[in-house]
């Protein structure tokens, strides 16, 4: 077991190297230091000032030095400061991760519980009205662009029903639910379609297995058969889908955060890309890659917990 973990960690380390290298190439493929300086200092700054900025940030050094420095700093977790506004990136992440998690985690949890429960319900009633209607509603929910969900909900719930503020954010727990209610609703509705169809297929497959008949023959109620026996056997595909979504909880959602005014990390990557802010971008990508690798290993380990037949050789 430990050998496997070490091998995967080493492997992950290699991938992170690859990611940082590819990121370096891609970024400097489309942005030159002059653009970055102009973005940071301001459009009207004279060329001399821009050159000074480039020197200070070391983007005038030969690319080999820059690449080495890029690797060293990232691997020593020295995130440094953003090119755009010199704010320490670690502080920006700390400030932004809370608001992002405040709506992505509930959306993820609610979406998971609702998705699994509804799929079990629909899979149990396979080929009946419940099944057919459930799948049609799922496909309907999937086919709508999230932009329309946002506009529609702000119009209907924010403006006509006036139940929740149209946008805004306040970390105070007494008030927070009011601000994150709509983003969560949208997140769940937009995601439930895809989840329902995926989980339903997995559960339908499992309900046809013989052990389900044994369980019912020994007196298990339908609820227990579905929620315990079938669900436990379907955990591997579910886990694969669920665990790969976890890293994205931290980066929040660009659209929801910009329309609902949530000061999370949703826009950080996009703003870094459009604002030619290389130092922030490489931190976001570095953390993203690390999370991706770690969670992949976590997924493998959860397989062993969930299914005795799986051994990590």
């Amino acid at each position, binding site marked *: 077991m430990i050998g496997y973990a070490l091998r995967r960690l080493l492997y992950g380390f290699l991938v992170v190297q690859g990611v940082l290298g590819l990121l370096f190439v891609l970024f400097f493929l489309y942005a030159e230091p002059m653009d970055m300086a102009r973005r940071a200092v301001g459009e009207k700054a004279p060329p001399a000032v821009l050159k000074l900025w480039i020197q200070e940030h070391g983007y005038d050094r030969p690319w080999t030095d820059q690449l080495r420095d890029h690797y060293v700093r990232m691997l020593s977790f020295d995130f440094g400061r953003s090119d755009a506004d010199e704010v320490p990136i670690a502080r920006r992440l700390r400030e932004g991760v809370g608001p992002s998690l405040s709506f992505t985690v509930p959306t993820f949890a609610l979406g998971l519980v609702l998705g699994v429960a509804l799929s079990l319900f629909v899979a149990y009633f396979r080929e009946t009205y419940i099944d057919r209607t459930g799948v049609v509603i799922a496909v309907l929910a999937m086919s709508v662009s999230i932009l329309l969900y946002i506009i529609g909900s702000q119009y209907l719930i924010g403006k006509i029903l006036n139940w929740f503020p149209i946008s805004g954010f306040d970390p105070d727990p007494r008030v927070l639910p009011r601000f994150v209610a709509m983003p969560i609703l949208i997140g769940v509705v937009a995601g439930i379609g895809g989840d329902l169809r995926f989980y339903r297929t997995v559960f339908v497959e499992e309900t046809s297995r*013989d052990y389900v008949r044994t369980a019912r023959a020994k*007196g298990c109620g339908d609820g227990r058969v579905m929620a315990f*026996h079938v669900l436990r056997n379907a955990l591997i595909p579910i886990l694969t889908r669920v665990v790969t979504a976890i890293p994205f909880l931290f980066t929040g959602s660009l659209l929801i955060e910009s329309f609902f005014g949530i000061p999370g990390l949703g826009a950080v990557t996009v703003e870094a890309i459009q604002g030619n802010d290389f130092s922030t971008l490489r931190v976001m990508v570095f953390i993203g890659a690390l999370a991706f690798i770690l969670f992949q290993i976590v997924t493998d380990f959860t397989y062993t917990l969930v299914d*005795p037949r799986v051994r990590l050789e």
Partner: protein
Amino acid sequence: MSAPLLEVTDLVTTFPADGSRAAVVDGVSIHLEAGEVLALVGESGCGKSMTALSILRLVPRPGRIESGRIELAGRDVGALSVNEMRRVRGAEAAMIFQEPMTSLNPVQAAGDQVVEAIRLHERVSAADARARTVELFERVGIPDPESRFDAYPHQLSGGIKQRVMVAMALSMSPKLLIADEPTTALDVTIQAQILELLREVRDRIGMGILLITHDLGVVNELADRITVMYAGQVAEEGTREDVLARPRHPYTQGLLASIPSRARPGEPLAEIAGVVPSPGRFPSGCRFATRCFRVIDRCRSEAPEATRIGEKHRAWCHVVAAEEGKA
């Protein structure tokens, strides 16, 4: 004579087929006493498994029990509510299946699956349930039951798994045990041990066993009475000797003739021509008419009634009726 352990009269179970519903089990009646083994015999697809499943109301969707009365120890199963039926399964009547490899929950320890069967019906502490399970494992002949308790299905052999199924079935000492092809998937040596186990269950515990099989060898070993089914209906029933020694229904005779051990060396194996008609497209009259070597006109137009041949021996065949002079 007290009421029989199991009384099934005119059971009809249907499945959707090309638009309408076809009767996979079409008016089957059987009965079983405590301490007796009734073998339900027939080619695969004749509805014997569906009959068994109907008794425990386990017919998978989109199948449905259309009509007929099922009495288990004097209780009308059809009238039970969902919850009452749930309490009957495992406690009053239990069932074991053909494929031990897949019938156990792969992600649950073998012992836990039996403990669950106990705790579904009785409030008992985990420790007591565990002790009873280990004791059950011993009774069904599982070597080193303590360590086998925590083993997962994929770590056990086919034979052991079938014994776990039997242990699970016996956990609440039900009155009726339905064994659906219990030995088919096992190799011969293990088969004998499982049959021996079932014989013990009948003799020492006095349970009634409904044995579903297409293997006439197993029937010969264990069955007290035999009911032969064809295309969803009962063709002939009687004691083991009646049916094996003095078969009267052409289908039963054809069936017995095709047992390899009865073939004379050098000659081709006997077989019944044609194929079992699929549900929904049954011919009118006697369903065996298209393949029967003693078919007469009446067979093609009129469904045969039961003709009593012996005290427990009956056959549904116009030719037999004629022979018995009761045409």
